């Protein structure tokens, strides 16, 4: 049976560490597929002006294409170069919930993420995305320091 690993990346240097760990793990497993996921933090309960709403669809498409172009596609290309089966996905939403949903929908067996780069008040009040993912995920999660 093919093992599917979902790699959550934030496009920062720590995301690269998650990718290299996943590459190493995938090679050890053998029959393995990798899914690089980038989640754009977004809440359906945020407040926007009417003008922002009117342009939202356009902006969303731009955000997805930028994330795909700058973060996901280069990562997928690097994994394929290393001889692995890889694909990518960009989604909007709460990082922890969305990563878990992607994993469930795509039949993933494990999520690999790097340690969260969030800090300050947000982290203290709401907890980091990584911590939230670890607490709520329905599959095993590996956190790379």
């Amino acid at each position: 049976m093919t093992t599917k690993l979902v790699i959550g990346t934030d496009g920062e240097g720590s995301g690269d560490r998650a990718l290299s760990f996943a590459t190493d793990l995938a090679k050890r497993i053998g029959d393995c597929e990798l899914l690089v996921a980038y989640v754009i933090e977004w809440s359906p309960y945020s407040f926007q002006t009417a003008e922002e709403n009117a342009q939202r669809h356009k902006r969303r498409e731009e955000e997805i294409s930028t994330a795909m172009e700058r973060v996901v596609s280069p990562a997928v290309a690097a994994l394929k170069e290393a001889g692995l089966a890889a694909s990518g996905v960009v989604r909007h939403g709460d990082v922890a919930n969305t990563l878990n949903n992607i994993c469930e929908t795509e039949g993933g067996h494990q999520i690999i993420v790097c340690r969260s780069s969030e800090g300050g008040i947000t982290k203290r009040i709401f907890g980091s995305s990584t911590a939230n993912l670890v607490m709520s995920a329905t599959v095993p999660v590996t956190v790379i320091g």
Partner: protein
Amino acid sequence: MKIMNRALLAAAALGGALPAHAQEAMSLDEKVNSVFAQFTGPFVSLIFAPLPGTSFPWIVLWLVVAASVFTIYFSFVQLRYFGHSISLVKGDYSDPNDAGEVSHFQALATALSGTVGLGNIAGVAVAVGIGGPGATFWMILAGLLGMASKFTECTLGVKYRNEYPDGTVSGGPMYYISKGFKERGLPGGGALAILFSVFCILGALGGGNMFQANQAHAQIAGIVGDYPGWITGLVFAAVVFAVIVGGIKSIANVTEKVVPFMGILYVGAALIILIVNYDKIGWAFGQIFAGAFTGLGVAGGFVGALIQGFKRAAFSNEAGVGSAAIAHSAVRTKEPITEGFVSLLEPLIDTVVICTMTALVITISGQLIFDAETGQYVLNEAGNAIATEGGVGGVALTSAAFGASISWFPYLLAIAVVLFAFSTMISWSYYGLKAWTYLFGEGKTAELIFKIIFCVFIVIGAAASLGPVIDFSDAAIFAMAVVNITALYFLMSIVREELRSYSARLASGEIRKFAH
């Protein structure tokens, strides 16, 4: 009206102490006011003309009849689908793959930021100050009926919006009137859409702009002391210009985040006052019900209360006006009617909840002078409104009512008024712009011209006295309703088909909740 009259009197008293240029400035205010009243007078008279042989403005009947017709035509949709509306706002029926698009909640919040504001604070005070607590009853009734009007127009707003190749959208009555009439083979759609756009521009400049600037100035002047209105107008115009022309989104973003917080704070403060005065709530509701049918001595009796209640409700929640259809049309949904369900919560939140709280606080605060012996309210010297403690009216009455229980609240209210006014101006600048671009085409030059005109009217609104401004604001907003509701009568069968189809698929399970 009393606020500014008092302000002018106070300024006259201070005249000797003011430098010469300030005195010239006051005369500039008066000049602006006189020219403004002269130009808008005939339009205002036409919109508020009474029904023959009565003092009842035909426009009020127009709105109430429309809301009642939609309520009956859609078999009390506001009650039957209330729970479903809440589910939609919560996102229960939103496809997770559409995350990042405008959600139902966001469309509702944006529309609310355009409606919740001075209408809830100053407008209610005007209604209760003139029509007595009884006006609240009619305001609540108008709010409940108005939910059906909002449902109708917002469904059509999404169904007939324009979606451009770059992904942006434009929607609103002008689009559903022209497209809907054409689809149904009805003549006159183009002309009606143009007429609506003209009134929408006037409404944006009136209620969405001058009234806001005017009341914000009154509130600031009430705290820092009197000074010429054009100064407030210039400051507001500069900030609005920076946002809508300069594209400085940070100001708009801050406002959009602070305004909901202010709204919650306002409702929270009202709740605290009501809890502290819980023993008077029963009495206040008694006054509301008694006043609704007897007037309790207010000018015009119970008809006066009814007119004020309906007028202020319409001005506050804008049901039937068509502005919300512009705001709600940006939502991403495959089912236009879902936005109709969501939008019907707007009059409920705006009028039934927030306006009622303001009215209750004013009633229990004792600011309205009540003669316990006769059981009637005491009229002011002019005999056109209830006498109040300190002779205040409008936003100053609300401020005094809250201040009677929470001494520092007027300062917070002043900040809230300024922010609400600013937020409403930003919303209405967009509504006006959409009407403008419908008439003159999408383009940077056309947009810039409207935005500059909008900013000029902020200065005029802040400088003019409340009387002509409030009359023109009401007239322009209600003129939009004349065209919009006419069109809704012709197009409501389309909404009924949508409702039938949707409810059948909802019942069969074809439309179901997504697991989040």
